[in-house]
């Protein structure tokens, strides 16, 4: 199966090694690999994560996301079951967030 994912490198946990190689297509493909179907609300979070990364050079934490978008904590956990911090960063091609909240 040839996929956009073959052209980029991932670390053992499935995070993109170089965030700059990320594209929307890669985001969609990572989601598929994680067994997720992305909707417009996921993209609100992913787009914010990319924007936050451009400005701060790191991945946003859930609190950064809920404070700066209209996505609430409850919705964030529904959108990314199994850990919003890591999953949102993974889909946005970023590294694991290091913040504690």
């Amino acid at each position, binding site marked *: 199966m040839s996929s956009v994912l073959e052209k980029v490198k991932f670390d053992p946990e499935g995070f993109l090694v170089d965030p700059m190689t990320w594209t929307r297509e890669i985001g969609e493909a990572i989601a598929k690999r994680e067994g997720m179907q992305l909707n417009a609300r996921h993209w609100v979070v992913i787009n914010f994560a990319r924007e936050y990364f451009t400005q701060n050079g790191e991945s946003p934490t859930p609190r950064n996301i809920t404070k700066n978008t209209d996505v609430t*904590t409850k919705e964030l*956990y529904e959108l990314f079951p199994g*850990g919003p911090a890591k999953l949102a960063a993974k889909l946005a091609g970023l590294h694991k967030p290091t913040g*504690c909240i």
Partner: protein
Amino acid sequence: MVKAPLKTKAAVKQTAKAAIKKVAASLPAKAPRKLSIIASKGSLDMAYPPLILANAARMSGIETHVFFTFWGLDMINKKKMNKLNVSVVGNPSMHPWFHIPTLLGAIPGMSAAATWMMRREIAKLDFPPVGEFIELLLDAGAHLYGCKMSMDMMKLTTADLVDGAEVLGAMEFMDLSEGGQIIFV
């Protein structure tokens, strides 16, 4: 007796890798992680560790249960959750601000001053006040429980607890913690 020839570094690495693979394959499928935290302190400085750990666990997708017992109950007590104080008497670790000797700590206003300073530092780090933090944990899907025995002792009922918190006995807490990790704060 003939000595076996020395293995090259690469060969040793290969053997180790194969061994790890074998062990990993023999383990049962990874069960989802579960964490139980017992929060037993009600001072402002000791309220944050269990809250931060519980939130970090939820952020990583770990099933999380927090059992509030004794003074820890204040954290989910609607009337007290936003009025927790720092105790300076008998607290040897008042840095990063300054050390307050126990005798001076007894001076009226000392505790209030330390509390005010700590609230300010917490806000600087963008950690929410205790009440808001509890809401955050509930929204994040953490399970919060008030210890039944402590509540009876302090004459509290479910109505005194924040909405979303449940009342639980110690034995029930043991049952639901089975198979998970437990942290006592």
